[in-house]
């Protein structure tokens, strides 16, 4: 199993020769920076898990064989770093799911961004939370106010469901010079010029499409 060995340059990682660790780091960074949950990088996670298990096995062998403890400890450090990235990536996603679980379960599109285990987690979590609310509070409220998702049956929409705030600001950096349309349709467009490699704070909604197509990265 050959892993790509070259690490990209400090400023702009080229897509051609990027190691899995580099990709995992980027996924972790993006996930942390974005206000909504991003599509699950299933392949990357599987590959990383495989490599981690391989190295863990190797380290055990090395220790048995009596290889220089220095070398063993270096491999251990590398393993720790990779494990941290993977764990943090999964944890950040779980945090977001917990925060927005009703919102995610409501929309097909958002639900498709979760892995199978995450979906099961989200459903169980939502079911538990609903049950908890119903038993402790909702059933004791008057008839019209008993749903988890709406304030009352009179409301048009589910206004008790927290939604991710897409209007928050994020720091982004673009791969090439880019012009962004900063306001929504129907209003005077304000164009922002982003030069290559220049970090700036921008509203997430404005960069969302560029981000999803990979022209812009979040830091």
């Amino acid at each position, binding site marked *: 199993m050959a892993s790509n060995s070259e690490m990209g340059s400090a400023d702009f990682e080229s897509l051609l020769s990027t190691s899995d*660790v580099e990709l995992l780091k980027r996924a972790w960074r993006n996930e*942390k920076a974005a206000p909504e949950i991003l599509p699950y990088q299933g392949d990357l996670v599987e590959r990383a898990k495989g490599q981690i298990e391989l190295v863990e096995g190797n380290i055990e062998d090395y220790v048995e064989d009596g290889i220089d403890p220095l070398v063993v400890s*270096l491999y251990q450090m590398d393993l720790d770093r*990779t494990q941290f990235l993977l764990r943090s990536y999964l944890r950040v996603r779980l945090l977001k799911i917990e925060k927005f679980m009703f919102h995610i379960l409501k929309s097909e599109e958002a639900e498709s961004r979760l892995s199978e285990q995450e979906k099961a987690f989200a459903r169980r979590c939502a079911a538990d939370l609903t049950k908890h609310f119903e038993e402790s509070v909702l059933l004791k409220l008057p008839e019209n106010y008993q749903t988890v998702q709406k304030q009352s049956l009179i409301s048009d929409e589910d206004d*008790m469901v927290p939604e991710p705030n897409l*209007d928050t600001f994020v720091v982004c950096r673009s791969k090439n010079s880019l012009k962004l349309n900063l306001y929504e349709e129907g*209003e005077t467009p304000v164009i922002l010029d982003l030069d290559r490699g220049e970090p700036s*704070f921008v509203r997430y909604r404005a960069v969302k499409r560029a981000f999803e197509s990979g022209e812009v990265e979040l830091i």
Partner: protein
Amino acid sequence: MAGQTDPHISLFSPQEVEFMAEDEMVEIVPNMNMDPLNFIAGDYGRFVPQIPTQVPLWLAVALKRRGKCTFRPPAWLSVDNLTQVLEAEREPQSKFQPLPSGYIEIARLLFDHARDDIPDMYMVKSLVEDIRDVRLHKLETNLGTFGADTTAVKMNNVSAMEVNLVRPFVIRALEAFYRHDKPERDADRDARSSSSSRQPPREANNEPRRPLRQR
């Protein structure tokens, strides 16, 4: 812990910023023989005495701590270069000077572990600290210029640590400006189309909010 105690998911702790900086490559001169290392992160080595090699910062620090190598300080970490940078930063109205994005972290790690490898270490250290102060001051004055018309804030040549420092404030300030601008824009939209404006969806950040479960 990896993001668990953090109510604000999108904020990076300084340790996490340092973690990211530790992947930057530096040059070391090993003083021993070692076979190539095949890490998940990449392949490094082989290590031959007196032959300089490029390795990630975390690996270099680990080797240095065990006395297996010496550092070659990066070109930007010299008294001459830093004095120049400091002079330029001190110019009134100047922009931020180009410095490596991880300069604070790299400098700190080198000072902590590799003092003897840097010529004029004390001078360099005080220069880096002065540069940090000047840049921080510049950042603060810049932040004071936000107004309702600030749609985006450019951070050219600002290092990762500095961006992270001001991130919470900038996000909240820009969000507040945007939100207070919104009723005006919604009113505009109403005037043009006759549909009633939607109520903004509830946000998930109701600060301060205590978590229901103790973590």
